[in-house]
């Protein structure tokens, strides 16, 4: 147990000093990866742990980004306060959507979140006088002096915060309820788990985290566009989670880093990364639904099994009903 924590600490420390040895371009990749870690982890909370496949996750990031951006750009509010406001607003909308989707399951929930996402997209585009729509809203940064390293540490802290929140929710008392709800709702309900409360809580928290991620991202890019709350972004987040491992804790982290780094490689050849990820995600979803985490787990398991000594088949008369007919 202790070795696990030590490894984790060393790994984290190593990662924290990594950008010092990298160029500006690679630092940027790390920052974007951390953004996706936040998005994927919070989406995973919703879809992987409570079984609510929401297609509106990117929309909540958009709410956070635009709320913060508009406050900063039009009302001159400090971006840090803006981020807090954005997170709060996203949480409120998440709560509302969660309540709206109470009685809906599966397909209906996905459709409603998709509808929510599209409505937001259209509103952003149409109200271009406030949001500047597709033209993009220019916003001030979080740091008065632009520094990639500075942003890296901001995102690192935010990502750790996100992961911590998700971890607590899953592993605390509430968390067992989360998993119970996902596996069998009726059984969970019969055991007294407040299904409704779990679902709405998941929606609210997950949306708040997405809102925070979106707001931070907007102030990093210094430009907020309707791309943030777009179906393309939703797809990226979804495929990162699916490929990494839906329903596992580390899955989204692995998926986010792998896909973001891979997309930069592929970009040299052209904008094929969406197609490439889509194909990989399709293959993974079809043949290995537990993602990379699931695969590595099963490889690990088989190695362990192979290492165990063969159990001799003895029978001390405890064969039971199988032996012979009486």
């Amino acid at each position, binding site marked *: 147990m202790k070795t696990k924590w030590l490894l984790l600490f060393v790994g984290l420390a190593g990662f924290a000093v990594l950008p010092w040895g990298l160029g500006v*371009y690679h630092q*940027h990749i790390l920052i974007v990866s951390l953004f996706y870690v936040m998005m994927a982890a919070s989406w995973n909370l919703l879809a992987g742990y409570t079984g609510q496949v929401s297609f509106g996750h990117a929309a909540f990031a958009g709410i956070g980004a635009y709320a913060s951006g508009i406050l900063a750009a039009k009302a001159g509010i400090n971006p840090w306060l803006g981020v807090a406001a954005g997170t709060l607003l996203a949480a409120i909308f998440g709560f509302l959507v969660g309540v709206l989707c109470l009685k809906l399951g599966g397909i209906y929930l996905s459709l409603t979140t998709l509808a929510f996402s599209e409505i937001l997209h259209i509103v952003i585009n149409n109200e271009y006088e406030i949001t500047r729509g597709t*033209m*993009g809203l220019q916003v001030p940064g979080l740091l008065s002096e632009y520094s990639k390293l500075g942003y890296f540490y901001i995102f690192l802290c935010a990502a750790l915060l996100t992961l911590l929140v998700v971890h607590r929710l899953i592993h605390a008392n509430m968390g067992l309820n989360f998993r119970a709800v996902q596996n069998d709702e009726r059984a969970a309900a019969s055991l007294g788990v407040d299904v409704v409360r779990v679902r709405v809580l998941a929606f609210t928290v997950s949306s708040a985290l997405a809102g925070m991620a979106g707001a931070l991202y907007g102030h990093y890019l210094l430009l907020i*566009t309707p*791309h943030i709350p777009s179906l393309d972004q939703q797809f990226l987040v979804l495929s990162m989670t699916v490929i990494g491992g839906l329903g596992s804790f580390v899955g989204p982290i692995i998926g986010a880093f792998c896909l973001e780094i891979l997309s930069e490689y592929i970009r040299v050849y052209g*904008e094929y990364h969406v197609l490439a990820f889509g194909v*990989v995600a399709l*293959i993974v979803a079809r*043949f290995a639904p537990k993602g990379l985490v699931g695969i590595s787990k099963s490889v690990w398991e088989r190695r362990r099994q192979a290492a165990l000594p063969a159990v001799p088949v003895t029978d001390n008369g405890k064969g039971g009903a199988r032996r012979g007919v009486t």
Partner: protein
Amino acid sequence: MKKRWVFAVLMAAVVGIALGSVPVQAADTVKIGVVGPRTGGAAATGKAFEEGIQLATTYVNANGGVLGKDLEVVFEDTAGAPDKAASGFERLVTRDGVAMVLGESHSSAALAEIEVANRLKVPFVVVEAWADPITAKNYRYVFRAGPSNSGVVNDTIAKWVVHEGFKKAYIVAENTDWGLGIAELSKAALKSAGVPYESLVTERKSQDHYTELAKIKAFDPDVVLAFVYGTGLHYFVAQAGEIGLTPKAVVLDGAGPPSLWPDFWTNVGDYGNLECFVSSMHEKVELTPLATAFREAYVEAFGHAPTDYKSRSIYDAILIAADAINRAGTTDAEKVVDALESTELLVTRGTARFGTEKGGPEYHHWMPPMLVIQWQDKEQVVLYPPEAATGKLKR
């Protein structure tokens, strides 16, 4: 078991392809970046840019190259989206190490890019993004070797409307920085010219314009100034014909390239006849010997005459960039900017000279002459300016 095998093989293949080939180390060259829409709704412009880049690179390298080395152009896709534009611009500078960046044909993308150029202190010569604020912001590192909205409206479109004696006008603008900007300027120009007008805003990607066209037809204008840079324009023209708005009213494509894209006639059919558009290139209006040389080189390389004027625009920009770096004697940004400011170079559209007056869009701006052209039986006929006209407006 079988599932795992299939999966493993497929994954290995994909990962292998993705990571397998390492980008080849480039030879010793001077790199310049180009930003533009290689994908997206205006990908035809990206194609035009590619052609111009090819011809310009050949020309520059045949005439001494840049600082004694070969010129290499890296073309980054921005798809007309401001977020892709900003990150693409930054990638050119940080990943590819370009000396300066040229291009862009979407104003919203350009406005995002100039911020990055300013932050990274990299010279940026905008080619075909017309919104005034691009140079009106007076950023030291930003230049424009191409049309601006105010230039196009005040020098060409407004004057043409008056020249043809149109009594009523309708302005249709897409909701982008370019569309809204040029619409505002057109309204102001028409007002001072005493031409009554009405206007509406539309979606660039929209396919169904029937409702909007009904409104326009009710106003009964002589000319419709359509500021839509995308295939939305094709549907607009086609549907304007269907509901009978044209040929009574004349439609002007306020950007130009959509009327020149290869699928224009497929999408618009016969309704494209008598449509007018803005352009900076016509075979019979070649202002400098370089323009003729460009056309001949184009025909030799691609087998047909050039149609999209944006290929020539990027060609000019590359020549200007190479000239500036050569005169600066270095790729140091400050010296290149100084060299750009003192540019006096003969290119295809005239002699390039950047404005020095601060406070407005004329700063660091060179405005090339623009033409109004009409499709008459699939032939391009120049209508304006009168000195360059090859025919008259037909209705």
